[in-house]
């Protein structure tokens, strides 16, 4: 057997086969894209989006919708107490003679400001508590979960009532009110976040990230959190509705901010429910429509993000 005998190598005839080929012509698919495809076909989604957009615009630029000031001297006339609509005042007057339409428009800003801040505070605390508890586990999990249990036990409107009764009237402002609501409503967000992070941290890409040398904390922030946020976004959207109700309830009970608020207007109008029900009706309608818009949006989002509930339609 000679050593220089060349051995036969068959020519490669097969075309190069690419393993894991991605068919580029296939529609891309992920959680959010699927949800979007589902949502954009639902008329109720577009109705609630438009409603929310209108509410936000009214809240940001109330002066575009009314030129009458909602309160203060020169704006309210006791002689017009509970008077009906007249030119320039399309919805009539409140018991104290202020313009109902103007108070509705300016009340939107208060509701949205408090609602958004409260939701942001509640969501932030909930996400941090839930994510840390689930990701690090062990003692930290027990501790944070028990703290969450304590906050879960106190109905948050009741807690906010206590906070607002205690805070002196001159120190009350939108931020204090938002903290009173958001500071006690985070427990359910934390529970949902914890469950979701527990699920996500089992996934392969988390292990990959850790084994590639990324620190635990960076893995949590960069890889786990973005993939665990879907249920929290749903809860926050619905929670915005609840926070707006909470603000109105507190104002209704007289422990809100005073001044312009739908809750305060409803509370003021209740004494003349028999004689002028419309003064009660308009702020009630504004409140209900606003809450309905955000709750509907949240519910549809939940439906679209959850294949299981999609199957139940």
């Amino acid at each position, binding site marked *: 057997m000679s050593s220089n005998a060349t051995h036969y190598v068959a020519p490669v005839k097969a075309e190069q086969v690419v393993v894991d080929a991605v068919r580029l012509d296939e529609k891309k698919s992920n959680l959010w894209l699927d949800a979007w495809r589902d949502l954009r076909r639902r008329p109720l989604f577009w109705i609630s989006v438009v409603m929310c957009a209108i509410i936000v615009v009214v809240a940001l630029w109330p002066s575009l919708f009314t030129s009458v000031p909602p309160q203060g001297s020169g704006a309210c006339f006791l002689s017009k107490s509970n008077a009906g609509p007249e030119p320039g005042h399309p919805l009539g007057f409140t018991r104290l003679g202020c313009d109902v339409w103007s108070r509705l428009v300016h009340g939107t800003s208060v509701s949205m400001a408090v609602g958004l801040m409260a939701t942001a505070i509640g969501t932030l605390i909930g996400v941090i508590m839930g994510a840390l508890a689930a990701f690090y586990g062990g003692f930290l999990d027990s501790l944070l979960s*028990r703290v969450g249990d304590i906050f879960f036990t106190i109905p948050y409107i009741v807690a906010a009532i206590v906070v607002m009764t205690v805070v002196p009237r001159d120190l009350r402002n939108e931020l204090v009110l938002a903290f009173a609501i958001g500071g006690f409503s985070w427990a359910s967000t934390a529970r949902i976040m914890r469950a979701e992070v527990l699920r996500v941290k089992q996934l392969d890409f988390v292990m990959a990230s850790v084994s590639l040398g990324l620190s635990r904390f960076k893995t949590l922030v960069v890889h786990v959190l973005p993939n665990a946020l879907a249920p929290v976004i749903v809860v926050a959207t619905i929670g915005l509705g609840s926070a707006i109700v909470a603000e109105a309830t507190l104002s209704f009970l007289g422990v809100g901010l005073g001044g312009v608020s739908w809750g305060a207007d409803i509370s003021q109008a209740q004494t003349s429910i028999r004689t002028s029900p419309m003064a009660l009706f308009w702020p009630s309608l504004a409140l*209900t429509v606003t809450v309905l818009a955000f709750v509907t949006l949240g519910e549809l989002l939940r439906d679209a993000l959850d294949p299981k509930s999609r199957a139940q339609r």
Partner: protein
Amino acid sequence: MATYILRRIIQVIPVFIGATLLIYFMVFGMPGDPIAALFGDKQPPQAVIDQIRERYLLDQPFIVQYLNYLAGILRFDLGTTFTGQSVGEVLGRTFPVTLRLAVLSILIAFVLSIVIGATSAMLKGTVYDHFQLVVALIFIAVPIFVLAFMAQYFLAVQLGWFKPTVGGQNNWGDLWLPALVLGFSVYAASMRLTRSSMIESLGQDWVRTAYSKGLTRGRVIPVHVLRNSLIPMVTDTATNFGILMVGATVTEGIFNVPGVGNALYQAILRHETPTVVSFVTVFVVVYVLVNLLVDLLYGLLDPRIRYVK
């Protein structure tokens, strides 16, 4: 079961201590002078301040104050209202009314959610189902005081079916209107729970088995499907209880029902901080107990929960 009960009770203790500590801290540990809050705009004489300071142990360290307050709660001594009645006494008078209201409204919510939830599940995807889901969404969104005023205006003032306010007498019959309002304010979530859990049950193998062995629809639905779908409703009732307590504060105030919620409502309106705190504490204690009870019931209904360590 005994171990399960014991474990649940032990778990409640830190939650109870934490919750009362939190409420206590909110009132007496926050910036702002509780005595000044007590007197509103008026400036009390120094002697009065000193006396209150001594009586409420405000000169003692925070933890001593809290322990004293906790000892009071455990002795059922919940302090006194501004008019000098003990909070315990007020509770004794108002609690039965609220209990009656709660029982009525939970009953209403329960019947509504089962009937609507079950029919919606069976008619899944039909106009009826969609209609009920939209109605449920509206009831979830409407704030309870708006619902209360609408009911008061349309059902009582316009139609005259009910008395607009309840007032002193509080027979079961008088409580129907506030109970309806409270019932409708919580039924929606339970109804959707019944619906989805029934849809899940309807697709199970044992339902097909039941049909294939010749059982009628009238027997399969209530006995095989509905009963199995009811377990999640038990936990839901506990959640409802929390909503009902907040709802009762507003609803009892609006309909003038002489219950615990109304007492709290009046205390808030009169800025009686200590009374508010006492009632809120009672709410939290009741809520913790109801949750404990429901958890125990749940363990009884579903053996799988008992044995989870």
